[in-house]
């Protein structure tokens, strides 16, 4: 080539060198950017790609009663799962026939699970029996992606049901997934009612995670870092209840075939000893699989077995409320205990007539309580007035939530002047409304739990403890039991007032002429008050509230039996036997049984003998 060409060649060579250098400069800059500046970001992305965190359900905490008896246990249960990305949807019909499920049910669950992740197992059926398990095993080759997990299910170890208190666990709903974002995955079990729901956080424990390495198809290749970074699940805390399941079983047996509620508590701290709401149902129906039919039956049952009457039902308290009026009248110095009236068997105000069972003749306050004289309290209510009465009702916790640590509760209804003005208009109600309130009727509603707390406060001369079910929680991590503290307050009244009221209540049970004689317990002085709450057009509700022993109270109790008539005959014996069972640890008399037999909700049903344990 000519010299001129040579010069041009060098020029061109320089240009090409420059272009090559520029290209690689760009590459180096990009490499620097990706690998040195954004290393963390891409490193994280690559980890998210290849590491799958598989949640490990913790073992749910156990529940014990106050005597240390195991009440709620866990048992392994097999759950059938489908891994969506491995599963062939043509197998749905076959799988459905093995599991005796509707194909659409499987299709629906699979779809929901797939929407969450194609790479995490979808739980299809919980708690399959051994036969189904073997059928699955036999057909495993035909059903790729179908597997099972061992989970635990709740087992109830005592004869007591305590349905509404213990509550049940259930698979988490979509709505709950939203409120508990991040803590649960679909298919996880969550406490749905009762203590299971209220103490969910403690009972559940902490979900663990197992890190696995997966390939691009999501198949697990092995443990990530040999499991060094796995977080084992932390077992849930154990609960120790204030309840005595011996008493609970006994109380439930006494209430069998009745409708109503019973609450017994330890007057010294407000711990619930027994709490019954009938009718109820067997919680073990809910552990494992729950069929939609069962749900439907329970939800539409006219007797409302799902409903916790002990905390949610608002009953008119009837005569059990008379002590509130007596206290108000004495504390506000409206009358003295010796104030007397002469009972002629009825009391008339306007066109309303209040009848008494008997003609009581001349009665003072103690006698009026003892014999439950309506005429006395109708007249006393007119003297005392609504506001004084309502004030002491409030002091004893009526018209407000007790704060019990389980489920929902109803505040009840305690009317004030304000309430009456609002409901009837300032001129819409008259003094004529008062006598019925004085005898626990009318615009007044209390829950059996409130009634029991009231009995407790009367027993202790004003120690009002917040009722509660859990005494202590024991952490599995620290092995430390943590005793729970609940607030208490004191209702301070004149000692003479306490003396009069309590003497009246003692006589109700212990003295001839008292209405609650059937609550008597051999060797123990019991105090109480019966109530027969009118509930037109239906039969009356039978009430009894009381406590024992009189001098050194330990247990307070409230019993209500719906549509059972007289409190003295239907409710008092139940209360008496529970007191006996609790304080003696066994029944020392059986003469009360006859009167219980005569009270049942449906005449067709037979009443089983009360079961006595220990």
């Amino acid at each position, binding site marked *: *080539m000519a010299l001129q060409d040579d010069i*041009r*060649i*060098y020029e*061109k*060579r320089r*240009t*090409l*060198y420059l272009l*090559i*250098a520029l*290209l*690689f400069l*760009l*590459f*180096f800059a*990009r*490499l*620097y950017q*990706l*690998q*040195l500046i*954004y*290393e963390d*970001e*891409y*490193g994280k*992305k*690559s*980890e998210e*790609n*290849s590491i799958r965190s598989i949640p490990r359900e913790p073992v749910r905490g156990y529940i014990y009663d106050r005597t240390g008896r195991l009440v709620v246990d866990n048992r392994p249960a097999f759950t059938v799962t489908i891994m969506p990305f491995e599963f062939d949807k043509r197998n749905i019909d076959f799988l459905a026939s093995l599991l005796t499920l509707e194909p659409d049910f499987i299709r629906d669950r699979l779809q929901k699970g797939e929407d969450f992740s194609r790479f995490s197992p979808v739980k299809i059926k919980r708690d399959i029996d051994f036969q189904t398990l073997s059928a699955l095993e036999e057909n495993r080759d035909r059903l790729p992606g179908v597997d099972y997990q061992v989970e635990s299910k709740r087992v109830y170890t005592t004869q007591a049901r305590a349905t509404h208190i213990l509550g049940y666990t259930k698979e988490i709903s979509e709505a709950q997934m939203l409120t508990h974002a991040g803590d649960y995955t679909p298919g996880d079990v969550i406490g749905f009612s009762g203590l299971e729901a209220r103490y969910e956080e403690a009972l559940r424990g902490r979900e663990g995670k197992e890190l696995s*390495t*997966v*390939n*691009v198809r999501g198949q697990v*290749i092995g443990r990530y870092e040999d499991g060094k970074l796995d977080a084992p699940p932390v077992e849930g805390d154990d609960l120790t209840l204030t309840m005595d399941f011996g008493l609970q079983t006994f109380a439930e047996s006494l209430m069998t075939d009745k409708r109503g509620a019973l609450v017994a508590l330890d007057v010294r701290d407000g711990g619930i000893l027994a709490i019954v709401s009938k009718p109820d149902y067997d919680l073990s129906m809910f552990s494992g699989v729950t069929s939609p039919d069962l749900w439907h039956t329970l939800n539409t049952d006219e007797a409302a077995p799902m409903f916790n009457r002990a905390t949610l039902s608002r009953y008119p308290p009837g005569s059990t409320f008379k002590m509130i009026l007596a206290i108000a009248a004495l504390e506000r110095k409206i009358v003295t205990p010796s104030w007397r009236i002469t009972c002629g068997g009825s009391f008339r105000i306007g066109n309303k007539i209040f009848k008494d069972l008997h003609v009581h003749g001349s009665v003072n306050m103690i006698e009026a309580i003892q014999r439950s004289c309506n005429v006395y309290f109708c007249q006393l209510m007119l003297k005392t007035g609504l506001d004084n009465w309502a004030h002491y009702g409030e002091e004893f916790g009526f018209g407000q939530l007790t704060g019990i640590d389980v489920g929902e509760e109803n505040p009840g209804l305690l009317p004030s002047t304000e309430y009456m003005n609002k409901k009837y208009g300032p001129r819409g109600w008259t003094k004529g409304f008062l006598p019925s309130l004085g005898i626990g009727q009318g615009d007044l509603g209390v829950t059996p739990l409130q009634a029991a707390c009231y009995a407790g406060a009367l027993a202790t001369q004003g120690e009002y403890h917040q009722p509660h079910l859990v005494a202590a929680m024991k952490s599995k991590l620290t092995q430390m039991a943590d005793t729970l503290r609940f607030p208490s307050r004191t209702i301070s009244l004149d000692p003479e007032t306490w003396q009069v009221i309590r003497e009246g209540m003692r006589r109700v049970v212990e003295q001839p002429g008292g209405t609650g004689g059937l609550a008597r317990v051999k060797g123990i002085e019991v105090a109480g008050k019966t109530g027969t709450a009118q509930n037109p057009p239906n039969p009356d509700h039978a009430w009894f509230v009381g406590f024992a022993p009189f001098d050194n109270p330990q247990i307070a109790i409230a019993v209500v039996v719906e549509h059972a008539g007289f409190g003295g005959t239907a409710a008092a014996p139940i209360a008496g036997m529970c007191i006996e069972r609790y304080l003696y640890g066994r029944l020392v008399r059986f003469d009360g049984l006859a009167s219980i037999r005569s009270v049942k909700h449906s005449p067709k049903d037979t009443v089983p003998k009360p079961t006595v344990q220990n």
Partner: protein
Amino acid sequence: MYSYLKEHFDIRTAGITIALVIVGVVSVYSATYDAKASEIFQKQLLWVALSAVVFLIIVFLPYRYLQFVSWPSYFFSIFLLLAVLLVGRKVSGSTSWFSLGTMRLQPAEFAKITTVLALATYLARSDVTLQKVKYLALAAGIVGLPLLLILMQPDTGTAIVFIAMFLPLLYWAGASRFTLIAIVAPPIAAFAALFGTTAFLVAVVVLGVLLYLTKEHRIVAAVTFSVMVMVGLSVQLIYDRLKPYQQKRIATFLDPNADPLGAGYNILQSKVAIGSGGLFGKGYLRGTQTQLNFIPEQWTDFIFCVPGEEFGFIGAAIVLLLFMALLLRGVSIGSTVKNKFGSFVAIGLTAIIATHVAVNIGMALGLLPVIGVPLPFLSYGGSALLASMSMAGLLMNLYANRKEY
């Protein structure tokens, strides 16, 4: 003996080639590693051995043979490209393979080399001057014929390589600046149009000024300019008529993050693989992206991720430096060879390798869209490896005979 070797054996190109082939073998092993050496890896080893033999033959081939076989080999390639369209095997949507027993051949890989040989022969003719449109058009025809056949397979990646290698060769052979700008202006305008009106206007203005600066005859310049504008304007029209998957490909290229699980998946995973490598890498056979197959068919077009992820910035930089050294060496040989034909061949081959490297690594680094072009020496694939080794052999042959006219 030593001085003879130094004079006639290009030890540097040989060293770079061997180094790159080793990096390739190591990378393919890792990308296909699954608790044991895979079938793919064993096949690749076989190809390495075969390519080494061909490489050595080409290095010591008598120089005159090259020019002598250039036209016959060109037409033989055309024949193969035609044949593959008729009897070829369809692999992932394109008919570009011949099956020879268990081995598959891709004629397009060899057509690149034979086209460079033919073009170099033609441009080296004393009567051919690129100042005349007739010769320019004929030169374009030599490239255009195989290009057309390859587009019919269709193999967009290889087609791009054909266009890209043509320009440096024209430049080297003395085409005017105007010619070069006129050739690149329409595609640039079209590309800019995809990014919107502003980008298009900027590109038109810049290219217009450049055309004006070449001082070409006004009418010729004006015609070129209008062609460029029309191409750009028609891009939008064509885009609207493209099939949805084609539109998606373009959209994904413009913003790979927009569709991370669809068409942008490969690029995103490739960036994650390289980015997560950091300075020193995750260690050989320990790259999670590579070992857990997050990048589909990584051993072919995304092989660069392996050194990037497992050996980090240092490993990737070494690979880049090797390629840069090879390209600079190619240009250097092109400027040293006294013979015109030889000089053109050297530049043409260097342009082919440069295009492959630019497109492939640009894609792996997320700078370019997914274009199926193998990375020379590294990517799995017999035909590509054989072609790469042949090109390295040719460069060495040219170096050995650089002083012959």
